[in-house]
């Protein structure tokens, strides 16, 4: 535990992007850090592991899962009931959850699936994880298109493994004939 973390009651999550990660090209540094306002580092690590168990993508950076913990922490900072819910959930899962093997984590979550903690974390994970630029890069979604002229000349019809559609069932591509 470093001095900074020792002096705080709330936590910090840190990590390194994989060397070959496409994000390493975008980020100012390979190192990333997420400050938590209310939750401890251990609780943050538990929530990251919950998120990775709900939505496991092996080659997706920890940094993406840390965003889920950060967003949950922000909710907790604004609402005492949410803080209690998250804290209680982490406590129930126990300190070993974050480092347990996936089948163990899956069993632990199945046991609490119907509860408010899991359901809150499931929606939080889906809404946060899959809307981050990190996830966009990973899943291939090319994002905002207007500033690049849409996809009209960037592959909206570049699929070649099926036959082209006859003109009578479609229409001309603007700018081409």
């Amino acid at each position, binding site marked *: 535990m470093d001095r900074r973390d020792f002096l705080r009651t709330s936590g910090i999550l840190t990590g390194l992007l994989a060397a070959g990660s496409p994000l390493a090209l975008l980020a100012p540094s390979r190192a990333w850090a997420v400050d938590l306002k209310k939750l401890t580092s251990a609780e943050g690590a538990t929530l990251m592991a919950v998120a990775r168990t709900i939505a496991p993508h092996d080659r997706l950076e920890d940094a993406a899962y840390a965003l889920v913990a950060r967003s949950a922490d922000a909710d907790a900072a604004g609402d005492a009931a949410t803080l209690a819910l998250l804290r209680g959930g982490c406590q129930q899962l126990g300190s070993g959850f974050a480092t347990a093997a996936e089948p163990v984590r899956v069993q632990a979550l199945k046991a609490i699936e119907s509860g408010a903690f899991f359901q809150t974390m499931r929606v939080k994970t889906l809404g946060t994880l899959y809307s981050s630029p990190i996830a966009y890069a990973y899943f291939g979604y090319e994002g905002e298109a207007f500033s690049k002229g849409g996809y009209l000349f960037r592959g909206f019809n570049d699929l070649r493994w099926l036959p082209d559609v006859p003109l009578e069932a479609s229409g001309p591509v*603007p700018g081409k004939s």
Partner: protein
Amino acid sequence: MVAIAHDDDTAVVIIGSGAGGGTLAHELTRRGIKVVLIEAGRRQSIQSFTQVPGDAFAQVTWLDPRTQSGSWTVAQDFPTLPSWTAKTVGGTTVHWTAATPRLRPWEVSSRSTYGAIEGTSLSDWPISYEELKAYYQLAERRLVVTRRNGNPGMPASNNFKVMYAGARKLGYKAVHTNYMAINTRPADGRNFCIQQGFCVQGCKTGAKWSTLYTEIPRAEATGNLDLRIECMATRIEHGANGRVNAVVYRDAQGKEQRQKARLVCVACNSVESARLLLMSESSKFPRGLANSSDQVGRNYCHHVGAFVWGFFDKPVYGWRGATLAGIIEDEEVNEPKRGFVGGYHLELIMLDLPSLPLAGLPYGWGRDWAWSLENYRNMSGIFVVGEDMSRADNRITLDPKVKDRFGLPVAHIHVDDHPNDTAMRKHAQDQAEKLFDGLGARRVVRSRATPATHNMGSVRMSADPAKGVVNAHGQSHDIPNLFVSDGSQFPTPGSANPTLTIVSLALRQAQYIEKQMSARDI
């Protein structure tokens, strides 16, 4: 734009600026009629629209609370979002995907065509198809619909190439890039589509028709429109003579205001239109305004809706391109031997991240569930849009407990699936699955029912005042100067995406209102 005094009782007050209200506002103001247009949402523009999916959703979606119940799976899967509608100038024409098929002739006489079906409240439209068709032609010109009036179709996207190849293999014949209110070339002061994807967002080129781009600015240009944004109508008032005479609303600061009116038109999208009428109850109308028939809120329809996703070994990049530019029309027939009455379309679809995991995939988590997202690049989508059965008890009521920020009861939506709906959904999803399997899909994933984007029927038309709320012109049977101008008028939903029909009815209603006002009937 003009400022109309709050005590000016000569103006028409329209509540809601979407397909119905926005179109009607333009049609009345260009005929020299003064209109106060009350809109709950903010005004966005092609400059302010964002393409960050979560932000785009929050920018235009109606997020005020609603509650729900019933056997439809939406009640379990989307407890806080039974209906996905818009709160913004332009209403749902900002977030719609611009598919504009017409109803079929037999769909406006469903009761006569399908016969008496237990557990339904089917009713024929009081308008003939021939008459409706004349207004479809006007609306299609207004919206510059593709594949109509000599307009070319939209070009085929990657996602449509999958749909087309699979559909042809399955033997379907009527397969094309849909009838779309999206420009393929500059027209009517709007730009053309550059295939940005995710048409549920506000369109940043204006290629997608919206009252925000055309009807509302044109109404403003007449000098007869007073558009009041961030104003939430809470009550319609009437005088001792039983005619409506004012609309009460909360302004952007939450302050209560009262606008006098010669005539009131309700166009708040079915759920809120019914809610507003029910909230406007009085000693003269104890069951809710214009509700002597007890039909306000009843017969709420939402279409048989569901997704089917096909996953392939090769990329599709389905997010590239106009979202709904693809349709299979072959199943839009009434063939009871399929095990259900009525028909459905299969339309092209793709969802953004995070809408796909939140709303497009069935509930789940873990490795097998996440596989679908791992293959986002390689997926193609089909959206089922079919006629759901009108049922008297599928209805909008006022929630007895939950209140909005003004302390007013929120809308409660109750929907029980009819066995016909369940059978149709299964048939449609089976067909879509066969389509993907025929192309060698690695896997096909089906959703359950989706939140309602098509909301219809809650303030239905009828020729007989005992059986419906409004007449064939959307005019209240009880109160001649009260009109309903949105999809809630539909006696039955048919299987067409509703916007074109809503616009057509608004064009027709405007002519009727002008005539009635000139004759001093209202």
